[in-house]
């Protein structure tokens, strides 16, 4: 059986985020740009992963994390330090820790503003073209090396967020290659999220190309891995319709989709998490 490996300090898994920072990411989603919103969700996701690994006595390295950003600055690591790092290093190295407020239950039926610390690792930028092929090639190289070093681990999950078409060629064969890289527990999982500010119809975790409007969306569908059953169950639990063979793919995603995509994509948590 695949995708059943225990995730532990001896056998961590890997999450690699590949983020489009091309010029079109500056389009507004409500009051904020797509780049702003994606960066915020990514920072929140990283903070949640760190919190999940934090015990009273320290941070346990259950996950290795990497961020690849691509756009006008080419393809770069989104974090300082190595491209993929254990989470016990990530938590020490945010760019800054901001003070924010959130609404919380006061325990007596009321709502209070609670001050929280919000770490920021990844700042939004948006410029230039969309070198998706170069970004996915860099991702492939990184996960090949990671799988060689962790042959018994739950395989890497690559979460790719984009809003437009590649400007450096057809990325489909690179995605095919990524989905063939494997550990003993299965092949790498590549999930794709297409974000939009337009009114187009959302396509959420489809099981086939039927109903997809154009060749671009069909290509992103083909580039995406099937959801493993436990991830599919989690997506169902969040209210999505997940049929047999559903892919880790959202097209024309709105802000809620972005939040859910990151949460569902990072679902392969500790087997003994509870």
């Amino acid at each position, binding site marked *: 059986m695949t995708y059943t490996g*225990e995730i*532990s*300090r*001896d056998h961590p898994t890997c999450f690699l985020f590949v983020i489009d920072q091309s010029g079109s990411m500056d389009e507004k989603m409500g009051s904020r740009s797509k780049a702003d919103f994606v960066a915020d969700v990514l920072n929140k996701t990283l*903070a*949640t992963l*760190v*919190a*999940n*690994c*934090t*015990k*009273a*006595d320290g*941070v346990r390295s259950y996950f290795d994390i990497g961020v690849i950003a691509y756009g006008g600055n080419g393809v770069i690591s989104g974090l300082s330090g190595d491209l993929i790092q254990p989470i016990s290093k990530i*938590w020490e190295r*945010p760019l800054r*820790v901001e003070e924010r407020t959130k609404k919380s*239950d006061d*325990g007596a039926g009321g709502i209070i503003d609670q001050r*929280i*610390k*919000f*770490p920021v690792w990844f700042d939004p930028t948006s410029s230039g073209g969309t070198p998706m092929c170069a970004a996915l090639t860099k991702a492939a190289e990184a996960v090949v090396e990671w799988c060689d070093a962790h042959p018994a681990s739950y395989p890497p999950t690559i979460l790719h967020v984009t809003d437009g078409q590649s400007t450096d060629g057809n990325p489909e064969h690179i995605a095919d290659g990524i989905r063939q890289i494997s550990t003993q527990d299965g092949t790498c999982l590549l999930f794709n999220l297409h974000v939009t500010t337009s009114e187009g119809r959302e396509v959420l975790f489809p099981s086939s190309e039927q109903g997809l409007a154009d060749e671009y969306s069909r290509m992103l569908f083909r580039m995406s891995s099937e959801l493993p059953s436990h991830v599919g169950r989690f997506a169902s639990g969040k209210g999505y319709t997940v049929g047999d063979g559903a892919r880790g793919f959202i097209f024309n995603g709105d802000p809620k989709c972005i939040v859910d995509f990151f949460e569902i994509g990072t679902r392969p*948590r*500790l*087997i*003994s*998490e*509870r």
Partner: protein
Amino acid sequence: MHLQRAFTVPKAADIPNEDRYAREGDTFALSDGATISYDSALWAQIICARYVQSPHVTSDWLDGCILEFNTRHDRATMPWHKEAAYDRGSFASLLGVTLTGTAIHIDAIGDSLAVLCDGDAPKDSFSYREVEQFDQAPMLLCTDHAKNPIFEDGVLAGEWMHDWSLEQLQSPRLLCMTDALGQWLLSRKGNDSTEKLFSLETKEAFDQFVHDEREAGRLKRDDTTLLVFW
């Protein structure tokens, strides 16, 4: 019926065990602290200690547990990652057992399992009866009061409680265990599995059993605790 044996093994030799149990007279508590929640061993310890002192799970009882947990931490001085983990809440199961001669009262929130036997033969279990139930996310007691929808008018709702009469049993016995062992047991049919657990007379035998089952891939690598009564 009396407690005969209590064994516990951590998920790995270098990781602290987050299972706790406590006893006061004929009242027992077993709690499994959730692996990825903050200081869940302390949370499990508070739950057990307070349950055996006052085995009536009410909203006020839980508030007392939460207050004690919060007084043991200083959120204001925490670095961001500990604050975030602390704010998520700590989670733990509760399996509370009260023996009253001819009956057993169980309070069970979460996936720790009680199994009633007649001799070696299993007769019933609570709160799970099917192995598939372990695939669901269990309700666990949380240090965030809002995440504990288990009360009706301030007292524990009936679905979390169960009573067993012992009067029809020839040789009543009881096993209490945390989820890894519970899943192992409910995945097997017949008397072999309960017979095996009753046969483990020493800590060394229990450790060896856990080791062997983990190596064979039949027992989840998690903190594993067993209480045996007859």
